[in-house]
């Protein structure tokens, strides 16, 4: 067994501690590294260096274990590159910003529905809903109305509109952060994420949300009740609009790709 102070043994230990991936790949990397370092030492000793000096020089020329391990990790596919992570994060900020802004827009639509069709359309309770006395007292404290149901409707209407509009403000902030970060990063480098990545995700996510919410509304219409339908209808309508916008963007991207695709 080599002495623990052998620079090559110490280097291999440090490299092993930093390598990830399959055991077979790790063994191969260590074997190639050791072969390289030992040959480097032999040649340096032939040129007149002591074994200790030659080993230290060989290790220094090989690069730090962290650098070498990072290069292996970047090319092995099991760890995404920093650029990929940043691009995915920015895509999430963009989608999240649009999502929260859409929630805010649905709050405004719900508010409009409440004004035009009555708060009961947005936040009315079903015909069989009954609230216990303590809940009614809570509703009446902040929204005094002749009946408990009317107080509950006013309470829930405020919640729907206020919370959604607050989410919308967060969404606008996220979009502002995205725009500023995008300007600072500049547009010089070729993106790693495929063309239409955000548009595809956006169309799928908002399309699914629109289907679920509008489907629930349809179900409620078929059941013969419109009380509280506006809550989902406002969300479904805005989601459908956002999904349509993403779909238009996706189709535009696909058309551009078709123009430059070979064959």
């Amino acid at each position, binding site marked *: 067994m080599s002495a623990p102070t052998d620079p090559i043994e110490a280097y291999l230990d440090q490299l092993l501690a930093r390598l990830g991936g399959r055991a077979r*790949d790790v063994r*191969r*990397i260590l*074997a*190639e*590294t050791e*072969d*390289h370092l*030992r*040959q*480097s030492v032999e040649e340096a000793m032939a040129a007149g260096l002591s074994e200790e000096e030659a080993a230290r020089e060989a290790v220094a*020329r*090989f*690069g*730090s274990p962290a*650098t*070498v391990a990072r*290069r*292996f990790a*970047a*090319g*092995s596919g099991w760890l995404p590159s920093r650029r990929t992570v940043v691009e995915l994060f920015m895509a999430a900020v963009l989608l999240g910003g649009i999502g929260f802004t859409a929630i805010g827009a649905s709050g405004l639509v719900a508010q409009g529905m409440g004004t035009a069709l009555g708060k009961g359309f947005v936040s009315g309770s079903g015909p069989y809903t009954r609230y216990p006395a303590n809940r009614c007292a809570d509703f009446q404290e902040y929204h005094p109305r002749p009946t408990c149901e009317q107080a509950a409707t006013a309470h829930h209407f405020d919640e729907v509109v206020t919370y959604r509009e607050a989410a919308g403000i967060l969404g606008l902030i996220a979009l502002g952060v995205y725009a500023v970060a995008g300007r600072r990063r500049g547009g010089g480098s070729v993106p790693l994420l495929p063309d239409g990545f955000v548009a595809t995700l956006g169309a799928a996510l908002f399309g699914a949300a629109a289907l679920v919410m509008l489907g629930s509304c349809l179900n409620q219409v078929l059941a013969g009740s419109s009380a509280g339908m506006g809550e989902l209808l406002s969300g479904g309508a805005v989601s459908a609009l956002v999904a349509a916008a993403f779909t238009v963007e996706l189709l535009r991207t696909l058309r551009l790709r078709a123009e430059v695709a070979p064959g």
Partner: protein
Amino acid sequence: VSRAPAHGYAIVTALRDRSEGTFDLPEGTVYPALHRLERAGLLRSSWSHAGGRRRRVYQVTGAGAVALDSRRQDWREFASGMQAVLGWSA
């Protein structure tokens, strides 16, 4: 490695010598590149035994030779274009 099978140490040394010291990279960073080229099917490698040591020897595959020719051609065109733009004589 395009001329004859070679192990990592020989490739690193050739890279440094033939570039007259221009490509004096941290030697360990050449191996990740070799592994990537192998995964891409442009190189293949196998263990060999020499001087009592086991070492990995790399050689260019058919696809690697085609890719190398293509890259050489691209580089010649690029270098020739740059020379023309900058007014150098070859």
